[in-house]
Structure formats: structure tokens, C-alpha cells
């Protein structure tokens, strides 16, 4: 990749010679390995990789991207010329021109820490995945179990025509378990996962068998559980659910590109109260348990951003283009899925700061509500323009007069962005952030790894779907 970097720098010079005011490139080398054990047998063991270069060229305020997997000098020059000619063609059309916020020509190298390279480990991976899968199947009532083990190495070099050169390499390892159980009420499933920016040592050091057994036991519980009656409930959310809530209910709407295009309901609300004063929300590239984002895909250092500070909207997340439009400094949130994708604004690790409450205290004041937990949650979605969000919970629990009473399944929660955070009336003192090697956040067809989390919180009056 170092050789390629020199050739790419020359290609960027070519863009400037042609008349571009700015050009940058993302050189990427990516590897992914997936092992899937399904009902006791190896369903799939696959490996894939991609390598290539994506160029962005700005000419008279018009932006164009092109990419190539051919890393020869000629192919790189052809790719940058293609981007230039598209940008030039677009520049003739009327409309707002793109400018980038200024940023220094940083030179940096950052790598996530790992001890054992997971791509160099052989049969031990299969043995662990197989054992976990078989143990999950042993729980009475379980009819199906899928265990996945995944590894990722993602090396990116960002180079621009202003002299910036940033290298970021991330190794991510994890395991997930999904179990399906049958009862006289039908089928239901539960699932869980854990991932770390770490090597194979993380897989060796974790008790996956116990995690898988717990998932299977929950699946059995869920298969016998009732679906709640639809309506409005007081809800206590565990940390992973808080992460989902924040990511969907607020995170996307705080992304600067959605704010500048008018697609966010948070447009024009900076400095205004948008949440209970108990709520402080942070986007941070380097939090423990989260994904490793020391620099974004424009080479901008990822700052710890207080998006909401004690209930007040303090900052939007930005890439260089949206920062220029909003008159902010770039916050290091310009990210891409791969070298072939355009830079858009993405969250990194989005979480809530802990408060003072113990979990028992959160439960105490709930007369009739739901304790929503994550094991089996599928994710969430937001319509940032209409202000509506939703997210699913895993196996959850009915709370009656301050006590957890019986399990619930099929819990889906929904609310309005500008309403929900003001309904948080208690924030726990615990804290957890997590990421995943199996998924991430989708936006504009791009999936990127993110982290989410926070403490337990209590929300008054969330809409819950039911029969």
C-alpha cells in the first residue's frame, strides 16, 4: 500500500494540474472472515477481501468520485481523470457549490491494539465455534442454534492534495449466538453478540459457552412469553437499548449532512433545549468497548463531541463539507463504507453519559411498565424528517409496582425525536459501550461499524406495539 500511496499522490497532482481545487483519495485493503456453525454443523467458512482506491475531485464546487481496483500508475491516473471530467461536467449546472472546511495537512499513523492476528489462527477457531454451537443446542426446548465468528482487518490510507497523509488500521473480532426455541405458543428466538477491536486473544479469553447457554435459555423463556398490549408505557432501557435509542432517535438527526440538506428535524435547533437536563450525549471515536475511529475517512482527527450537553443541543456531527456549510469545525465524522463510496456524515461511538441512579431505583418508580433488554433486538430506524423513530427490543420484562414480573416478547418501541429525550427522568450510574463485527449502521446504502451505549435509563410514555 505504501507504493500505491506514492502513485496516488501523483494522481492527485494530476487532478490539480487539470484544474481541480481539491482532490483526495482513500486507499483501502480490507479482509473479512466468517465462520458459521448451524445446528451442530459447519454451514460456511468464507474469506473475502477487497483492495482499491477511491478518488474525490472538486472542480469549481462540483464533486465527483471514481474508483479503481487496478493499482497501476495508468489506471490510477485514468480514475482521477474520470472523476475530474465528471466534476467538470457537473460544474456547469446551477446550484450551491461545495466547499470544504479548512483542515491542516496532518500526517499520522494509528492502529488498534491486538496481540494475536486472527487471520493467522487455524483450526482453533472452528473448534471454539463448534463447541459454542453444540452447547447452545443442549438447552431443553431449543430447536435451532446458529453461532457465527467473524474477523475484520481494515487498513485505510487517506491522502489529499493539501499534503495530508493518515493511516488507520483496525482489527475487529467477535462472536454471535442466535437460538430458536419452540413451545406450545410457537417459535421464538433470542440472540447476543460481543465484539472488540482486538485480535484472537479476545476470543480465547471470553466465556462464549456461557453466553450461548444464556441466549438459549432466553429463547426458551421468550417462546413461552406474551406479546404486550399495544399502548403507551414507562420503559426502562438497558445500556444497549439506550444506545439504539440514541443512535436512531437522535444520532441520525444530528448528522450535519442531513441538517444542511434540510432532512433533519434538528435543523436550526443548536443552542436550544432538546432533552431532559439529565441527558448528555457524546460521539467519541476512542471509547472503550466501541469501534476504533481515531481519524475519519477525510483524515480529520475524531474529536470527542458533546452533541447534547445537559439537555441542550450543542453540536452537529460534520464532515468537511457540512462543517463549512454550518460554519463549524469538522468533527471527524466524514466516513465511507469502502473506497468505492462517497464521504457522508456518520456517527462513530454514540452514547449517553452515566448519571446517579442504581437500577433498583429506576424500577422503584414504575407502576406498570416494561424493562426492555437487547438479547434478540434487531435494531432500529428513524425518519429524521418526519421525526419518528422506532427500535426493537429483545426478550423483555413486564414491570408491575416496581418489580419485574413476567417475560414479554415482540416488544417494539416508537416515539418522536423531539419528544422522547425530554421524557427521560432518571439515568443510571452503570455504563457500557459496544460494537459489532457482524453489522453496523446503514445510511445511503453504506454500512459502517459504529458503537453505541450508555447507562440504564428510564423513559416515561414510549409507544409500544402490541395486540
Amino acid at each position, binding site marked *: 500500500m505504501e507504493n500505491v500511496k506514492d502513485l496516488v499522490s501523483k494522481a492527485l497532482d494530476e487532478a490539480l494540474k487539470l484544474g481541480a481545487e481539491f482532490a483526495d483519495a482513500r486507499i483501502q485493503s480490507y479482509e473479512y472472515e466468517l465462520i458459521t456453525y*448451524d445446528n451442530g*454443523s459447519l454451514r*460456511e*467458512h*468464507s*474469506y*473475502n*477481501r*477487497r*483492495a482499491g482506491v477511491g478518488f474525490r475531485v472538486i472542480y469549481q464546487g462540483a*464533486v*465527483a*468520485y471514481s*474508483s*479503481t*481496483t*487496478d493499482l497501476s500508475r495508468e489506471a490510477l491516473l485514468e480514475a482521477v481523470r474520470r472523476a475530474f471530467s465528471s466534476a467538470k*461536467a*457537473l460544474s456547469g449546472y446551477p446550484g450551491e457549490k*461545495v466547499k470544504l472546511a479548512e483542515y491542516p495537512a496532518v500526517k499520522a499513523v494509528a492502529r488498534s491494539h491486538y496481540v494475536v492476528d486472527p487471520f493467522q489462527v487455524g483450526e482453533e477457531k*472452528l473448534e471454539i465455534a463448534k463447541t459454542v454451537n453444540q452447547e447452545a443446542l443442549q438447552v431443553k426446548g431449543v*430447536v*435451532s442454534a446458529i453461532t457465527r465468528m467473524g474477523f475484520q482487518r481494515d487498513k485505510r490510507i487517506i491522502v489529499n492534495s493539501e499534503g495530508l497523509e493518515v493511516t488507520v488500521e483496525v482489527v475487529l473480532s467477535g462472536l454471535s449466538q442466535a437460538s*430458536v426455541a419452540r413451545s406450545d405458543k*410457537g*417459535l421464538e*428466538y433470542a440472540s447476543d453478540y460481543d465484539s472488540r477491536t482486538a485480535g484472537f486473544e479476545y476470543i480465547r479469553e471470553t466465556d462464549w459457552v456461557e453466553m450461548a447457554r444464556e441466549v438459549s435459555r432466553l429463547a426458551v423463556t421468550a417462546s413461552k412469553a406474551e*406479546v404486550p*398490549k*399495544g*399502548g*403507551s408505557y414507562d420503559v426502562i432501557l438497558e445500556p444497549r437499548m439506550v444506545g439504539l435509542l440514541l443512535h436512531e432517535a437522535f444520532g441520525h438527526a444530528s448528522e450535519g*449532512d442531513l441538517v*444542511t*440538506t*434540510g*432532512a433533519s*428535524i434538528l435543523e436550526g435547533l443548536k443552542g436550544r433545549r432538546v432533552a431532559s437536563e439529565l441527558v448528555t450525549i457524546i460521539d467519541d471515536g476512542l471509547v472503550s468497548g466501541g469501534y476504533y475511529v481515531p481519524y475519519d475517512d477525510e483524515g480529520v482527527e475524531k474529536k470527542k463531541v458533546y452533541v447534547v450537553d445537559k439537555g441542550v443541543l450543542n453540536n452537529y456531527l460534520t464532515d468537511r463539507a457540512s462543517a463549512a456549510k454550518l460554519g463549524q469545525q469538522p468533527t471527524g465524522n466524514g466516513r465511507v463504507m469502502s473506497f*468505492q463510496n*462517497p464521504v457522508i456524515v456518520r456517527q462513530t461511538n454514540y452514547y449517553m453519559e452515566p448519571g446517579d441512579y442504581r437500577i433498583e431505583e429506576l424500577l422503584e418508580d414504575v407502576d406498570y411498565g416494561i424493562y426492555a433488554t437487547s438479547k434478540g433486538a*434487531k435494531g*432500529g*430506524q*428513524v*425518519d429524521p*424528517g*418526519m421525526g419518528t423513530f*422506532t427500535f*426493537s427490543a429483545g426478550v423483555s420484562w413486564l414491570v408491575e409496582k416496581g418489580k419485574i414480573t413476567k417475560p414479554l*416478547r*415482540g416488544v*417494539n*418501541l*416508537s416515539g*418522536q425525536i423531539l419528544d422522547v429525550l425530554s421524557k427521560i427522568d432518571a439515568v443510571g450510574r452503570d455504563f457500557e459501550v459496544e460494537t459489532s463485527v457482524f453489522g453496523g449502521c446503514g445510511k445511503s446504502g453504506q454500512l459502517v461499524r459504529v458503537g453505541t451505549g450508555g447507562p440504564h435509563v428510564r423513559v416515561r410514555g414510549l*409507544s*409500544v*406495539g*402490541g*395486540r
Partner: protein
Amino acid sequence: MTLVLDPEKIVSQAERLGASEAEVYIVKSREHSVKAQRDAITEAEVHETLKLGVRVALSKRVGGAGGIIATMNDVESIIEKAISIAKTAPPDEKWPGFNPKIGTSPVKPEIYDETTASTDTGFLTGLLVKQLGIVREAENVHVAEAGIGVDVSETIYANSHGGPVSEKATLFSYGYELKREGEEKGTYYDYIVKSRLDEDKVYSLTRKGVEKVIDASRAEAVGSFNGDIILGQEEAAGIIAIMLAPAVSAEQVQKGRSPLRGKLGEEILSRAITLVDDPFLSWEPGSSAFDDEGHPTLKKNIVERGVLKTYLYDHYTASVEGKESTGNADRRAPWSKPSPGPANLVVEVEGSKQSLDELIAGIERGVLVERTIGSWMSNPISGQVNMTISFGYLIENGSIAKPVKGLVVADDFYEALKERFLGAGGHRVCFSSVCTQSIAWAGVRFAGKD
């Protein structure tokens, strides 16, 4: 893209390196797209990609590898990686070998359009500019984001038993998010994905959006109530894909993860409903003359007058049951193991209404759903449908009363479409490889702002 891959040579190379069998899946693609933001053209993209997947079997040990290819060295290292993975794999005692029946269906669906293939960035930009002009005519309505693109691809499959088979396809996509500003704020998005560029559809879809965003901006959050539901065609298509595509997959059935296990020959939906898997529909992205393991595709009834007639099979799942593949192998990526999936699901409803208005007229109180979020979080294992209605219309006494939003629905899919099915109405439209009219069922709890 100058590199040309010979699938037969790759299969031979894998066999020389020790594979008892090998399969090769190649996708070449060229994409052009143009994007607009806030009423102005902002970005263009051009990409060319060559993806290769190689799976090998060493007797009953199977492994796969793949990726984006730049040089012939990449091909060699992918073959070697697939073999090294297979060497460490435990034997799969059910392994039937790769698909032995390679070929194309007698029907060759129309999925490649020369005019679409020859469009360039300039043409797409011109189309998007016209679209921006249509929106500009509406008061207080803006394009928050819009995108238009063309993808030209060729898929090639071969394995140790035969091939190659290949197929060219074009794909046209257009989508937008409109925003209404002023006192009543709201957004509305829509999109179309077809195998052929349809200029008129771009304009009509844009005009529809301009009308809908006004209603969306007036949508009110309402309290909880019980009533009937009509899912508009796009939302109906989405729910059917999420709930039925995995449930009729023989793999999910065999692994105990489908609620339809053991229900062949049973009535699972209303007697009015027939569900067809049709890989031959013209200009639909799900159409193809062969599946993802080179097996000829075929049209079949999955559900006939409410009765489950068949599951969908690829070669592996078919051989587990001693059956023939139904030509439904589907791959997540060129290097993945295939699993059964539908081509295009067509929902046919006996006695359906000519128009959506007739369907609405039969409902005393309910919601016509235009847009949802989170319906993809519905649970095909338990059969529970979940969705949050981000924009819909309240129906009262057989007429549209007002636009609404923020209602959460959870329901039992099979009970709803069997016991409480009210019918279908309006035109049948295809979205995301599901073709359906708007569909309605009774007895839904809408959870709202209480």
C-alpha cells in the same frame, strides 16, 4: 476494466491444486450515478468492479473465498485461500456436491436494455435536472436529496460439472427525499428500481412525491385505537418479502426456524391468496434465466388458494430431501454459500377490488399506510409483524379523514392474512422483487400518543 477471467480455467486451476470439485461465480459491473442535495446537483460517481467467488470441495470438506479482483495474482491467492479453508473444515456428511444441472431456462427474461446500458453521467444529470425543475414549481417544496443511477452487470457461473452460463443485466434506480418547509414541515421519500430506464416514471414519481409531501407535512400524531389496516403496495411488498421469503426457504424449514415447517398442504393464508414465484417478469431485478448456482430457474406456485404447495430449494437443501432444486439458489455475496430465496414473489388475490378507493370504502375505522419505518424488524420466525407508521391516512366511515403518523403496529402475520384478511385493491406494482396490490386486514391495535 481490462482483466478478463476465464471461469473454466479457474475451476481447472482449483482442481489442479487439489479440489475434488470447484465452483466459480463472477460479477462484472459498471455503475454511474448522480446525486442532488438541497435543490442542486452535487456529486457524480463512476465505478467499475470485478468480483470473484470460488468455493471448493475436498471430498466433503468445503471452503470459500473471494473478493474484488485487480490482477491474476488475486485470482490465484483466492483459489489457494479457498483450498486452505476447505482443508481445515470438518466433513459435511450431507454434502451432495455442487449443482450438476447447469443451464438456462427456456424463457429468457428481459433484464438487459441496450439504451439503459449506454446512458452516461451527462444523460443522468440531465434527467435529475428536469426532476429538480418539477419540484421547483411547487411552493415550499424542496429536494433534500435525490439520486439516479445505472448499473450494467454480467454474472457468470461455472463449476466442475459444467458451465459457464452467463447473463447480462441492467439496473436503473431513482430515488428522492422531498421536504416541505414553512409552517407545516414534513418529508416524503420514494424510489424505483427496475432493469430498464423509464424516463416517464421518473417524472410521474416526482409529481407524486410533490403531492404526498404536502399531506406528510400535515400528518398528526394520534392516540391508540383499534381498527383495520390497508398496507399500500410498497409497504405490503416489504412485509411479504420480510415474512414469507425466509419462511418458505427449505433451509430455514429444515433447520427448524420457519413457522411453516410441517405445513405443506395446509391452509396458511386466506383462500383468496395465491403466491407465485416468477423469475421471468420483464424488467424486474429479481428475474433471471438461472439461479446463483447456475441451475435453470422456473415459475412455481408457492401458495395456491391459501394452501402451501412447496418450499423453495437450492441444490443442497433439495438433495437433503431427495428432491430436485426449484432453481432458487441465492447468494449474499459471490463467495458465500447459497441458500434458497425467491426470484419475484407475485401476490394474486381473488375478488380484489379494482381501485384502492373501493377497498377504503369498506373500512369503518383504520389506517391506509403510506410509509413505515422498522418493518424490516418484523420476525419471520415467530410470525410477528412490527412497524411504525411514519405517514399514513386515518380512514373513517369509508373515507380518508386526515394524514397521521407515529402509530406502532404489532400483529400476527399468518392469523391476519388468514382469519382477518379483508382483500386487496388497486393496481399490482412490483417493489423489491415483490409484486402486489394494496392489501387489507381487520382487527389491528394501533398504539399511538396517549
